[in-house]
């Protein structure tokens, strides 16, 4: 190879791929915060339909239709606040993509309880929130002793059919499954990322 060929191939095979890959990763991760992206996995359709339904009175739909959150509504609520929150959300998002292709579970739910911080980030200094005596003592909300979604329970209003692959053993087990069918509000929402 001539030196000129080496340089040309270095640009074509090393430099351009790095530039293109970094740009694509940045742009696609940014776009992945949109509601449309969350809806690109069909398992998320019920949640997206509920959020974007103007007739729905679920908490998520209220936030969406009243534009309390202007953009990237799924990501805003489901990425934890703090320095590593967005990064964790993106890593979980990649996990969701893998789960989507490996086989999404029949019953979609959050990996962990919905943290109060995600609500309080916006609400804590709001006048209406402060004046509502139901939110006292505030320390219990801040510490997580009281949970926002315990009272504001219809977050998404999506009912799921449970995975009945393991059912059929005992009636009691079925009763437990039925209990899980009751929308807890936050179920599955983290998959929206």
């Amino acid at each position, binding site marked *: *190879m001539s030196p000129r*060929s*080496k340089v040309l*191939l*270095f640009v*074509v*095979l*090393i430099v*351009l*791929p790095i530039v*293109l*890959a970094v*740009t*694509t*990763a940045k*742009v*696609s991760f940014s*776009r*992945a915060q949109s509601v449309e*992206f969350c809806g*690109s*996995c069909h398992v998320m359709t019920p949640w997206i339909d509920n959020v974007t339904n103007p007739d729905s009175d679920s908490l998520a739909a209220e936030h969406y239709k009243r534009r309390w959150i202007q953009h990237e509504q799924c990501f805003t609520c489901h990425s934890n606040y703090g320095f590593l929150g967005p990064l964790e959300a993106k890593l979980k998002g*990649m996990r969701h*993509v893998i789960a*989507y*292709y490996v086989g999404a579970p029949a019953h979609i739910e959050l990996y962990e309880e919905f943290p109060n911080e995600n609500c309080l980030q916006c609400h804590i200094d709001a006048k209406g929130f402060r004046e509502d005596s139901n939110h006292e003592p505030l320390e219990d909300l801040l510490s997580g002793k009281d949970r926002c979604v315990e009272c504001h329970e219809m977050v998404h209003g999506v009912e799921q059919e449970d995975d009945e692959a393991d059912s059929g053993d005992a009636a009691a087990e079925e009763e437990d499954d039925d209990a899980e069918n009751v929308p807890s509000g936050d179920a599955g929402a983290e998959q929206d990322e």
Partner: protein
Amino acid sequence: MMSSAIRVALALAAVATFLTLWCLVETTALSMTVFFAVALPLYGLGAVLYVREVLLDLRDHKVL
């Protein structure tokens, strides 16, 4: 005259670039998966072939 390894590397880079541009234009779960799972490894393989070829070339010229 290009070696067969460089031709393969260029072909891999061309395929990877096509897939990457697809992800760049239309970002969906599928295109992002293809980008990370297919395009990036193809770029990496092309780069490895190029580096290997350069090292072989340097060895032939007794630089290494």
